[in-house]
């Protein structure tokens, strides 16, 4: 059609429309009585600062609310841990507030299962039990130091027979104990990745699990892109190429349990370099001599065969560790998951100490700007909100299970943790729990543990309730996170700690406050005098409001004093710590090492009922809504299976079946299974999706810290019946391997 005929036709159409539009439309305009505020406009709504409680990292977050509904969670830019970022689990937390399966009423187990009882009756029942228990009770949470734990501690802490336990992240207590001899007190290691030029990650899946993925993610960004002329280089050593390892420059597939040996071998070369180059360190030369003597056994030539890598690779780690100072060594799950975890952590901390001294000699140490460390205040805040980090974890869980078996407890409170699901089969938590006369589960959802409890109390979501939290990160730096209700409760829930307070008051026990909010205010008042940078002109009430607007208190940034060299006595005696015990394995006769791992979405299983998290593709496999087992293609070929074929994995404790996902980033003698799948009672999205790898695990513990050695398990793998379509998004080896882009 040419232009002329187009215009002619358009003219006909236009005149037709003029004829049709002769009658005027309404001359009235109807306006709203009240302007709608539907949240469609991103500038609408109010932002409130609070603290994310999806894990214990203690990230400060801000929440956008519109019409009393939480719409979006983002990181709080002024918070020292989150630094303005929030992880997938934090952002998906808005889904759990409005989840159709949220518990809405307190339920007491009767002959015919759970029955709804009113809140008044729930308080009566608990208060009666408090009176009868006479202090013989336990409180179990996910390892958080928060208002709830603090309140329980203040009510029952002084009574004989009371136990406050944290079912904290696996390996947490090893991290706290490792390298304690070099630091002035037990605490989490805190290598400065932000300013490092070279980093060795010893099985440290720091961007997907561990103390604070968000913090480490920020550090990684600084290390890689934060400086104009330096691109930080990272090496990952461990038996599986995790999503953390995937962003490193080199992956060394070290056999399970041998990372301590690798660290000592690197240390041997580093000490040799220091001596041969006559680097003038503040370390006394006697100490260097002693270490050199002890480390002789870890010469790369001698241990290369055990580490299954050429000796030159160890030199390739050690030489840049000296030359590209500042360098850091970071240990993580693949270290703490074995029985020799603390010994290996000591070796890694030794490397960090050497790195620090080399950096000091080369004037290359960057003293980062951090909130001022104050170990004493940090510890007092921790104790005011529960128990010390050292007193949490698996060792205490074993003590608890023994106590339950022996009938030491007539009552237990289990708050926001799911030990029936996420503790190893070898611990036999469920059996022990059934021996306690009365257990209360404080939860948002029905789960495997709540189903075993006598009374279930639906708690507020963390966006709806008050709390105060001491994060288990950053080491040494005191932080008092405040959690405030940013929205009104969506369903008829009550704060679990408010119910405990009410029941304790009814049982004539001494309570620290009338409500959780009052307790939180009290803690702010208690520590106010020690809070650096707190405005003195504000009254207590105004100061509390001031902190709520920020999301809590942390000391203002200072330029740190250089870390002092440990005293000579420590340096000289440190040779005793330089050892690499052989790893031990449960089911050692089996051919494959089992490598359970946390994914960034599922965590320890709490993310499994969240549709957003199930829908988010796993960073490595790109699988969604699905469970899998990773094995090397060579192993798969040997077993005669291809992608999607079912295999049976079994140990003395149990067996699971899973579809195979062949993956080159894993040693041929290792099979890796994600944690958090295979719920049996956690709502329709989670229940029956995959199987629970914890049912395969024995109860092996770290020989020093007592942490659960969750990777010290060997298993049998055999082909099973059936196949499953693997719903992956792309090929794990990059999109050029995927079907869409295949040439």
């Amino acid at each position, binding site marked *: 059609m040419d232009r002329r005929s187009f215009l002619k036709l358009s003219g006909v159409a236009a005149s037709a429309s*003029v004829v049709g*539009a002769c009658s005027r439309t309404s001359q*009235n305009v*109807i*306006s709203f009585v*009240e*302007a709608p505020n539907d949240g469609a406009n991103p500038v609408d709504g109010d932002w409130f600062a609070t603290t994310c409680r999806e894990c214990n990292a203690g990230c400060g977050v801000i929440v956008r609310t519109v019409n009393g509904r939480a719409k979006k969670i983002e990181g709080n830019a002024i918070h020292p841990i989150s630094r303005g970022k929030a992880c997938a689990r934090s952002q998906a937390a808005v889904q759990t507030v409005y989840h159709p399966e949220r518990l809405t009423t307190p339920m007491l187990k009767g002959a015919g299962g759970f029955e709804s009882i009113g809140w008044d009756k729930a308080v009566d029942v608990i208060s009666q039990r408090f009176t009868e228990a006479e202090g013989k009770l336990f409180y179990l949470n996910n390892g958080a130091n928060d208002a709830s734990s603090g309140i329980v501690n203040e009510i029952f802490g002084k009574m004989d027979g009371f136990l406050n336990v944290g079912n904290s992240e696996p390996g947490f207590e090893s991290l706290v104990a490792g390298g304690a001899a070099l630091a002035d007190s037990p605490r989490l290691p805190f290598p400065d990745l932000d300013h490092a030029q070279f980093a060795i990650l010893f099985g440290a899946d720091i961007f997907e699990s561990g103390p604070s993925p968000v913090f480490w993610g920020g550090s990684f960004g600084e290390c890689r892109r934060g400086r104009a002329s330096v691109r930080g280089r990272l090496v990952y050593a461990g038996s599986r190429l995790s999503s953390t390892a995937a962003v490193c420059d080199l992956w060394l597939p070290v056999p399970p349990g041998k990372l301590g040996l690798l660290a000592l071998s690197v240390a041997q070369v580093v000490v040799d370099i220091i001596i041969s180059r006559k680097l003038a360190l503040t370390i006394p030369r006697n100490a260097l001599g002693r270490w050199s003597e002890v480390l002789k056994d870890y010469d790369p030539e001698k241990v290369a065969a055990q580490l299954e890598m050429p000796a030159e690779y160890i030199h390739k780690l050690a030489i840049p560790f000296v030359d590209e100072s500042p360098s850091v060594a970071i240990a993580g799950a693949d270290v703490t998951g074995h029985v020799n975890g603390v010994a290996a952590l000591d070796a890694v901390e030794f490397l960090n100490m050497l790195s620090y001294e080399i950096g000091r000699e080369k004037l290359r140490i960057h003293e980062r700007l951090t909130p001022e460390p104050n170990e004493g205040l940090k510890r007092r805040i921790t104790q005011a909100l529960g128990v010390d980090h050292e007193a949490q974890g698996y060792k205490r869980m074993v003590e608890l299970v023994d106590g339950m078996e022996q009938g030491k407890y007539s009552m237990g409170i289990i708050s926001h943790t799911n030990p029936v699901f996420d503790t190893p089969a070898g611990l036999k938590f469920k059996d022990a729990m059934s021996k306690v006369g009365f257990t209360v589960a404080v939860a948002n959802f029905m789960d495997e543990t709540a189903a075993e409890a006598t009374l279930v109390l639906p708690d507020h979501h963390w966006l709806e309730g008050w709390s105060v939290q001491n994060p288990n990160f950053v080491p040494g730096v005191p932080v008092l996170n405040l959690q405030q209700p940013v929205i009104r409760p969506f369903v008829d829930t009550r704060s679990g700690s408010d119910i405990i307070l009410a029941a304790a008051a009814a049982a004539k026990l001494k309570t620290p406050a009338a409500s959780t909010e009052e307790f939180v205010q009290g803690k702010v008042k208690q520590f106010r005098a020690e809070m650096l940078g707190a405005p003195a002109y504000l009254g207590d009430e105004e100061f509390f409001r001031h902190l709520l607007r920020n999301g809590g208190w942390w000391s203002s940034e200072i330029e740190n004093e250089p870390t002092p060299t440990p005293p000579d006595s420590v340096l000289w005696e440190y040779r005793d710590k330089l050892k690499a015990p052989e790893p031990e394995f449960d089911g050692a006769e089996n051919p494959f090492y089992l490598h359970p791992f946390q994914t960034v979405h599922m965590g320890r299983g709490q993310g499994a009922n969240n549709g957003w998290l199930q829908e988010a593709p796993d960073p490595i496999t790109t699988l969604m809504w699905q469970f899998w087992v990773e094995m090397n293609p060579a192993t798969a070929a040997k077993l005669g299976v291809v992608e999607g074929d079912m295999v049976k994995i079994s140990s003395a404790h149990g067996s699971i079946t899973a579809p195979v996902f062949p993956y080159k980033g894993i040693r041929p003698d290792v099979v890796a299974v994600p944690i958090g799948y295979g719920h049996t009672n956690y709502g329709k999205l989670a229940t029956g999706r995959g199987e629970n790898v914890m049912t395969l695990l024995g109860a092996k513990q770290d020989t020093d810290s007592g942490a659960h050695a969750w990777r010290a398990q060997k298993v049998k793998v055999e082909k099973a019946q059936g196949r499953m379509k693997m719903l992956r998004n792309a090929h794990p080896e990059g999109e050029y391997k995927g079907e869409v882009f295949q040439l």
Partner: protein
Amino acid sequence: MASIPSADRCVYCHDYIKADAPEIVKVMDHYNGDKPIEWVKVFDLPDHVWFNHKRHIAKDVPCQKCHGPVETMDVVSRTNEFSMGFCLACHQENEAPTDCWTCHT
């Protein structure tokens, strides 16, 4: 087309300012009774006319040229008939386009 603000916007100030004036009382009645106000359009163009304020303001055409002296009116009323001749006269005077498609798109 610009929309009319919601009635609660009026109430922010008129709850206090001239709250007794008869026209304001009417607005308050609508607000308190949760009844939307049906505003009467004084200036209206047929649907087949496409008009954009932005271009006219950018050319510094005074408001009063079309709307009359609204700053002096207690009750706004139409002083010009919005006919095609009214638009064209001004377009020709200011050498604005007079092509049909300028307005009748």
